């Protein structure tokens, strides 16, 4: 990929982000519910004090003025103050983002580790009883609602067996000076095996709950593309050359079959980063998904706007990364 096309692709981000910012802003205007009333809650308040709060939250300005102000600030990386936290939304999001990234990555690793071997296996043993079991299991994996499966895991592994903790990200004693803010990584970098083990114990159940549907999708994609690839002439040729089964499977077939898996995995990562509110709530995981949904309920506009922009940015970037990965997996693909 040339530098020029790289920059060109990067430039596509700008109109997308602008479009998203308009849509989010208009949607916050159209959604019923008044942040001032929600914040005041159940309380006797005079009109003057109500207006003062409205002014303080910047909601007394007409919509177009608010939008221009938002846009002007956003370009400088300033998304305003969270109505509820009363701190810059960028700081609030930054405090929650690492937990979400860590959980998403571990869930993705779990999904890949399960899906690719199973997918290859199911394709090679096509129509065998094991293939069918894998296919049906993956159907369950996609269909199980996260909140139900998560609670089930908690009841079994945390309440009955008491092997793993119910919730949270780490115990009180496993405090590690942050480097990357990813606990698993930081505890290893600091040589704190106890903290690593503690963090691992906390992340297992949420990562499985979050990763299971992804694993199921990836497994099916891998199986389908493996089946497609195994029918190709070059595989027959490789076999005819007398290469071993392993060489054919992993060197020739899998490498080509992985392209769709990578695409789907990249898109699923976007979904993981944005859509794990349910899992974060069930496991008390201090991530961004929970924060955003809570913010929607209380109409915390600045935080919603910033988070949606972040999601959009992540999604577009991941797509971009997937495209680059294609070129590595298959040099014939050009951007």
């Amino acid at each position, binding site marked *: 990929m040339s530098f020029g096309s790289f920059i060109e692709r990067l430039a596509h981000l700008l109109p997308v982000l602008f479009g998203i910012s308009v849509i989010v802003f208009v949607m916050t205007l159209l959604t019923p519910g008044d942040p001032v009333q929600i914040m005041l809650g159940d309380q006797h308040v005079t009109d003057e004090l109500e207006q003062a709060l409205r002014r303080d939250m910047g909601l007394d300005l007409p919509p177009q003025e608010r939008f221009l102000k938002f846009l002007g600030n956003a370009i400088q990386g300033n998304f305003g103050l969270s109505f509820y936290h009363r701190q810059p939304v960028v700081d609030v999001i930054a405090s929650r983002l690492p937990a979400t990234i860590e959980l998403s990555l571990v869930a993705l690793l779990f999904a890949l580790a399960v899906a690719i071997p199973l997918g290859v296996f199911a394709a090679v043993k096509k129509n065998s009883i094991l293939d069918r079991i894998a296919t049906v299991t993956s159907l369950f994996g996609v269909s199980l609602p996260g909140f139900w499966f998560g609670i089930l895991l908690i009841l079994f592994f945390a309440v009955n067996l008491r092997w793993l903790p119910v919730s949270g990200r780490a115990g009180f004693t496993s405090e590690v000076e942050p480097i990357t803010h990813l606990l698993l990584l930081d505890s290893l970098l600091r040589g704190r095996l106890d903290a690593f083990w503690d963090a691992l114990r906390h992340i297992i159940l949420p990562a499985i709950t979050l990763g299971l549907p992804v694993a199921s999708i990836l497994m099916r994609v891998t199986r389908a593309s493996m089946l497609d690839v195994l029918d190709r002439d070059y595989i027959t040729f490789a076999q005819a050359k007398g290469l071993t089964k392993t060489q054919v499977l992993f060197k020739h077939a899998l490498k080509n079959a992985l392209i769709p898996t990578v695409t789907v995995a990249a898109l699923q990562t976007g979904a993981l980063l944005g859509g794990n509110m349910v899992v974060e709530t069930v496991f*008390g995981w201090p991530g961004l998904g929970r924060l955003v949904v809570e913010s929607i309920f209380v109409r915390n506009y600045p935080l919603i706007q910033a988070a949606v922009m972040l999601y959009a940015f992540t999604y577009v970037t991941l797509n971009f990364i997937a495209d680059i990965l294609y070129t590595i997996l298959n040099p014939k693909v050009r951007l």
Partner: protein
Amino acid sequence: MNFTRNIMVLGIALALTAPGVPQASELRVGFSADALTLDPANHRNRETETIIRNMFDGIVTRDADMNVVSQLAESWTAIDPTTYEFKLRSGITFHNGSAMTADDIKFSIDRLTQENAMGGQTSPRQSLLGPVSGVEVIDDLTFRILLASPWPILPAMLPFQEMVSKAHVEAVGDAAMADSVNGTGPFKLVEWRKGQSVIMERYDGYYGGSTDIEPVGNACVERAIFQVIPENASRVAALLAGEVHIIDKLPSHMIAQVEANPDTKVMAVNGTRTTFMAMNNQSGPFSDIRVRHAMAHALDRQLIVDKILNGNASLTNGILSPDAFGKNENLPAYEYDVAKAKALLTEAGYPDGIDVTLDVDGANKEIAEAIAAVAAEAGFRIGVVVGEASTLSSRFRTKGEPIDGQMWLTSWGNGSLDPVGIFVPTHRSNDRGNSSGYANPELDALLDAANIETDRAKRAKLYSDAEAIVNRDLPKIYLWVAQGLKGVSTKEAGWRPSSDRRINLHDACVN
């Protein structure tokens, strides 16, 4: 076989390294939400206040029975209707060891009430202190709170505010107050893991707390942790697994689970939130008082409380909860009487019954469906429509503009237990919580008079009269005040739940 064996080995390994039962001097609370900030002046959130209250004390506080009692102040008197004088206890120190004086109180209250007093921001708690206009410092331990107009509920509203150190705020700056704690409370901050937990340890220089709440002295446990677990089922699971000692917001359908476990129990306390059904008094069938009365007679409220809330609520015939100041104890109840309901409906022109809609948010769907089922017998064919709470709020709480809907099952909380916080907003003409479009000048006059009446007996009488009016006019169907339910480990002792849902851990011990 290998796989099974590996799983077993992994399980044993995990179990061996499990933290197990927390140490004897550590108390954990499974709490439904995280703090939004640790700055007592910069939030408008009940859960945040509950957490903060363990690190910051107030001028006055409430005991578990909701009486206003002294805390930092040892006494107070109303010099005149707009001036209250307070005397502070001596020997109170902040967590950094510096002494607290009346200057800190003045600074804290100014920060809460003055425009732009927090680094250019105005405190979102300003309205909770109504007409407080300033503080006059008399000497190190004496100060006066000045009011712009008479406000008899000042002592009832003061427990919502915590005092900060002037020197500390000036040193760290207002923005840093979000996670920098230097309070006078029984616990000091160790670490706030945002979204996850607030970890506190005992402050050994504590002055002892309110002398009206035994025991006085340092907190019982060495460490206290609020562990954020938003999901009800997970919070209960954490209690059952022994990971936490107290959980808030125990849903009534999970009581049995907690009671069945030998290591956990349920503690209930009278709530302060009145549940009611707002009816559109402006237009439609409920603008006819006979239809509203018919609806009241069509409901077997006790049956619904018993079946859906497991009996954990007390019925109310007016807007005030049974524990509130000025509660009218003699309000007539609208008895469950299907024949009477049908007769009233026929009289109002609906001999064949009536089709109506009941809006409700997701959390209360089950109750709404029970109401629909019970009222059907009297001829109310109720369609239950589930919506999102904030959206419903803007459809019904219209400040006098046309209401978009017929009935809304909702509630209003009243943590101060003073009528002004619930009666005025929900019933005064065009007020912000008036979700039935009810407007009655006679009632408005009573509420306005009560707002500034400083004689307690006269004030109680005004509210009592006001409640008789709404019981008669029935702009809403007053249903019940649900109890607050907590799940508690049997290892915990000394802590009592309180009606305002606060969880003060000073008295909680762990065996």
